[in-house]
């Protein structure tokens, strides 16, 4: 029995990482209606910048502070240079443009850092384990859960309690009306996309000491992000948290129940929820 309790706790930790990977995609997809297949590259670059900065400075903290900001700035340039030109176009053009970005960035990563992965050492202060019911659990993973929880609270406050959040929500309902009221909706959209990239980069930073940085990590992340968004409901912040934790727990518990099916069960859960609740757990009508 203890193993199942442990797997649930482990799954919650995993789910918080999945939440961070997915929430930015949920915002851009649900609130902006923009299909961003390039979301995973922000996560990828977040992990690689962490590796690079930590290797250069010897400090994970410096890397954790600088990498998301740098990725946010990059996302702003990308949005201005490429993505905003597809906002008013059908989704297929957004998919083509963002997939192009994925291919270019991924190949640049291979050219710059090589096809093999790189490791990032867990900071000394966060290394070690605690015992949970006879099972070891890394202190670093507890730190990741804490950071993800803080990010979740901060993000909720930003979207629900600030003028920026109100503009994002209003812009998603009626961009024309918001424009007529004197707000530059394009700037709000830029800000939203940059915010999504920033959060994905934070996920990349946090995952680097657990899984390292390797050129294909964005593919898995994008797959997980879409599952979280579909289960949670597009644009739903709360839905992203619930869905992230749900698939984390399913994956972790299934590792014990039916190990070979643990990945499969994530998609089975998504299918079942899609059938029962086509808009996801917390999706808007």
């Amino acid at each position: 029995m203890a193993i199942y309790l442990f797997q649930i706790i482990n799954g919650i930790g995993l789910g918080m990482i999945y939440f961070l990977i997915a929430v930015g995609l949920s915002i851009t997809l649900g609130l902006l209606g923009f299909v961003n297949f390039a979301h995973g590259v922000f996560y990828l670059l977040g992990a690689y910048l962490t590796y690079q900065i930590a290797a250069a400075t010897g400090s994970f903290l410096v890397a954790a502070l600088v990498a998301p900001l740098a990725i946010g700035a990059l996302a702003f340039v990308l949005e201005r240079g490429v993505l905003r030109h597809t906002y008013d176009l059908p989704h297929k053009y957004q998919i083509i443009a963002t997939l192009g970005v994925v291919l270019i960035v991924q190949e640049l990563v291979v050219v710059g850092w090589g096809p093999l992965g790189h490791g990032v050492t867990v900071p000394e202060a966060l290394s070690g384990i605690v015992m949970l019911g006879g099972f070891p659990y890394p202190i670093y993973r507890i730190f990741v859960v804490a950071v993800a929880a803080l990010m979740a609270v901060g993000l909720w406050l930003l979207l629900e309690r600030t003028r920026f959040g109100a503009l994002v929500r209003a812009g998603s309902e009626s961009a024309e009306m918001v424009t007529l009221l004197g707000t530059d909706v394009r700037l709000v959209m830029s800000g939203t996309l940059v915010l999504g990239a920033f959060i994905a980069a934070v996920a990349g930073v946090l995952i680097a000491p657990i899984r390292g940085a390797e050129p294909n990590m964005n593919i898995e992340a994008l797959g997980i992000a879409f599952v979280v968004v579909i289960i949670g409901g597009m644009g739903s912040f709360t839905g992203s948290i619930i869905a992230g934790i749900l698939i984390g727990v399913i994956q972790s518990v299934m590792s014990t129940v039916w190990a070979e099916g643990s990945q499969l069960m994530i998609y089975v859960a998504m299918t079942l929820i899609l059938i029962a609740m086509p808009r996801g757990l917390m999706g808007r009508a």
Partner: protein
Amino acid sequence: MERRKFIQMTAMAGLGMGGLPLRGALAQGNAADLFMVSAFSGPFAANGKYGEMGGRLAVKRLAAEAGRPLNYTTIDTQGNVGVATRKVQEAVAQKNARIFLGGALSSEALAMSREIHKANGLYITYVGADEVTGSNCNKSTFRWSVPTYGAIHETVAPVADLHPQAKRWYTITPQYVFGEGLLNNAKDVFKAKGIEHVGNSYHSLQEKEFSGYLANAVAANADVLLILNFSQQSIDTLRQLANFGLKKKMKIVVAWSAGLDHFSTLGADICDGIYFGVQYWHQHDVPANNEFVKLCRENFKSAPTLFTAQDYSITTMAIKAIAQANSTDPAKLIPVLEALKWDGLTGEEKVRAFDHQVEKNYFLLRGKPKDKMRDADDFADVVGLGKSFVPQDQSECKFA
């Protein structure tokens, strides 16, 4: 200038210029075309990149011995069975390709092997599945690397002997042909050594999160965790088990490691104390390997990795066969290869005629502490090495 002399010079110049393409064509007809098939993109891109370095180094090193020009062409299989099969078919049909070298995955190598055999070609590979020189063997296909049978016998058995008190073993296995091969062989050795197999976690080829499987090993109260996956997945497994502090709770054995690539990616702190089975180790002190390491350091400013070493080895095999047969016809190369014996990177290496498997050493390494490393690549000590292969009377290979 006299008119006759002018005509003579013009004629000679014309002949000379016209003769250039003719000479080229003659040389081209005499050339050996080697097609290196591997993944240059996707998750297994490292195989292609570092493999090509080894293949081209062998071409450069053995150019004189070959006795003819050597053309070395790469084909990107993307680590995808469908792509690999189609590209091999195209190369056979459009470029008259007959000599193929490489393969990133067992599954794609098995598929390519069938296609190349159909085209009466020659294929030398290094993938792991027993089937390549076992139940799915064919006359066209040769393998340099030790298959899963030998990898398990040269890792599990010696570690069991080193730690006789460690009787409870847990396994983590990727669910495809290569993983199944390792697991089945491991079960045989467990039985022979009186080891209790306390559990196994299968996982998919896409898996990145291993914490759940590691918890299973803890729950099973295992003395030894035997990791049967490969490449990025074993890197992820090792990184996560180090995070979970499992190195202090149980012995860790990686049956099939990429060696130096793994160590460099993981770092000495994680590798310290872990047992690794490897096909090649750059510190193995034999003349051919010492020369190869020197060549790599001169050409690439680094010690050779497994990918570089294995492509160097199979390209060397092909060129030696071409030189001895004085032909590029696979029908003439195959009998030469079947009797081939040479001083290779792992010591004496020779081909078994009955299944086309190369007999070579497999190494068992143990990661060493960072403060014991003599140089940047000195990650491990060789604990053991040996040759274990399916005996002829038990071989499933039957050439048609």
